[in-house]
């Protein structure tokens, strides 16, 4: 990147291993705070398992509440890793280097959290396995693979496994570096994890080829995961959900919330680990440009969804959309559309704002509030009027247990990221060094211009 300062490999090692080798006081403060919140979530989940789903606000006909909203939200966040990492890697975008690992790791932890909410949602978590895996070998009864509820675990398992492998492959050289820079038991652990990596030309060649291969392979999985999540809704005959546009609409929404979350994560990393030379305003600038396109694409799909429901002459579809666009949901709808498009997009249009990290973080948070509301508006009003002629309409209000578990989910992802940063470098050190190897400067008249040399 053009603003990258000239740094020696020793400086890069020192800066990027700081989070692993040093433990500032703020780390412990954050650790305690997050563990406290996670602990509250564990208590809430224990209460729910002990007393049953009656402690939640779920009731006929609204059987999907905060848990499923949270599931869809965190699956959406998990799309950041692939979007940032795979696409930028395939397109050889130089600015990807400092952000790829954090984005990939966020994918893993948010997917784990998303999967946890499906398990919690069942109310009897130990029974979840029965639905996802073959059971009852004596009678030979198997789960029905024709159900989208079986597609989901297969897609999430593939994406999670692929993401973990993606993170690990790119981590191997940095584990070797950590082995070389540590002593004692840590050296032994990193030595085992890096598999005896030496850094010869063949290994580097293969690692680069693997990065491209995995990127190319994981992209179709990335698209399939949120498409399949959308089919949890779309395959049903429920008015408001049985919509053909749901798959691309969900994928774009996931990219929007995920990439916005990466902005917040980058800002926290930059501040917490003093990574100002690595995560620079130009990175926020680039992601801001990307987000303009994604947010407008999301708005387009949302507009299509609304228009089709209102003008397709399907009475049930029309009534559900009318409900979403009437008070009290109208206020949430307006807040959502403001958070996702009307507020952030004009801000991202200006370079000055895109390079202002504080503003970018706030817009990222606002977008994620909007995206959470979007999932709420898809699920709750629709279920309240699920059966048009059955006189089984109802309301939903989340209980304290559900609210606690939503807070828990955010704390859980943050805690896992914090612990990861204590064990592994959060910026790929070898990739950062590679960027320095490729960087050259040349003169045009009185100017010295930086450039990236490519084969």
């Amino acid at each position, binding site marked *: 990147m053009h603003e990258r300062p000239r740094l020696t490999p020793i400086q890069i090692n020192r800066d990027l291993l700081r989070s692993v080798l040093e433990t500032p006081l703020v780390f412990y403060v954050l650790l305690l705070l997050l563990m406290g919140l996670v602990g509250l979530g564990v208590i809430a989940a224990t209460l729910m398992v002990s007393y049953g789903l009656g402690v939640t606000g779920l009731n006929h006909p609204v059987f999907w509440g905060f848990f499923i909203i949270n599931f869809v939200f965190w699956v959406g966040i998990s799309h950041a890793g692939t979007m940032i990492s795979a696409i930028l890697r395939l397109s050889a975008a130089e600015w990807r280097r400092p952000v790829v690992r954090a984005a990939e790791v966020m994918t893993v932890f948010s997917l784990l959290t998303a999967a946890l909410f499906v398990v919690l949602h069942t109310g009897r978590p130990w029974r979840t396995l029965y639905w996802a895996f073959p059971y009852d070998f004596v009678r030979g009864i198997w789960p029905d693979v024709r159900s989208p509820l079986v597609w989901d675990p297969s897609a999430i398992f593939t994406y999670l496994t692929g993401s973990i*492998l993606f993170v690990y492959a790119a981590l191997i050289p940095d584990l070797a570096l950590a082995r070389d820079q540590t002593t004692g038991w840590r050296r032994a652990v990193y030595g085992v994890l890096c*598999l005896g990596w030496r850094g010869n030309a*063949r290994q580097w060649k293969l690692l680069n080829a693997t990065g491209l291969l*995995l990127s190319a392979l994981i992209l179709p999985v990335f698209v399939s995961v949120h498409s399949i999540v959308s089919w949890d809704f779309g395959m049903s005959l429920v008015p408001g959900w049985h919509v053909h546009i749901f798959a691309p609409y969900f994928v774009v929404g996931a990219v929007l919330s995920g990439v916005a979350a990466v902005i917040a994560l980058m800002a926290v990393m930059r501040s917490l680990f003093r990574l100002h030379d690595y995560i620079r305003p130009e990175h926020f600038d680039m992601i801001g440009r990307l987000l303009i396109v994604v947010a407008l694409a999301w708005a387009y799909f949302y507009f299509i969804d609304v228009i089709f429901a209102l003008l397709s002459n399907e009475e049930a579809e029309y009534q559900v959309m009318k409900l979403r666009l009437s008070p009290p949901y109208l206020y949430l709808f307006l807040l959502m559309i403001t958070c996702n498009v009307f507020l952030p997009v004009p801000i991202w249009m200006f370079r000055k704002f895109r390079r202002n990290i504080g503003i970018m973080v706030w817009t990222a948070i606002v977008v994620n509030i909007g995206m959470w509301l979007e999932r709420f508006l898809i699920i709750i009003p629709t279920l309240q009027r699920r059966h048009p002629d059955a006189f089984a309409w109802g309301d939903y209000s989340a209980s304290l247990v559900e609210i606690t578990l939503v807070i828990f989910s955010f704390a859980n992802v943050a805690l896992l990221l914090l612990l990861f940063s204590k064990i592994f470098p959060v910026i790929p050190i070898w990739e950062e060094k590679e960027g320095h190897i490729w960087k050259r400067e040349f003169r045009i008249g009185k100017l010295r211009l930086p450039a990236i040399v490519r084969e």
Partner: protein
Amino acid sequence: MPSVLGLFQSADTAAAAADRLQASGFGPTDYEVLTGAPYPEGAFGEDSGDHRLFIFPLGGAMIGFAVGLMVTAGTQLSYPLVTAGKPILGIPPMFIIMYEGTMLGALIFTIMGVIFESRLPNLTNDLYDSRITEGYVGLVVRCEDDAQADTAQTTLTEAGAEEVKQQGRS
């Protein structure tokens, strides 16, 4: 067999040393270049050899597809319960599981491929220096005998190696 490691502070000096090694009779496969970050292929005149990494995801995809087919068709045929008048073997829902199985197989086998082709895990105690991850470039020369090791040591020292180590002398 003895081996010699020369440590160089810059890539240019290491590349010049590699040229000298070749002039001294060592082939491009006789030495290995160790770096802390990837350099463009052939920057040191080394021969990193061919690989078959691209076969692995293909094999993995085929295995994953077969497993996906078995899980979907096998489970449904073993207990053929008609649901909502739908066919027992419906292609669209089966395709999704088979697709995920295919991709999962390809992903797992890609990693297996890179580990296998990179000769990992490497349990040998080959010559190495932790300064390589601090920006030094290491040239490891594998020699036939002690005399060749002496030649390699002299060549690397004359080429500007900051330090030269030997291992495995008889």
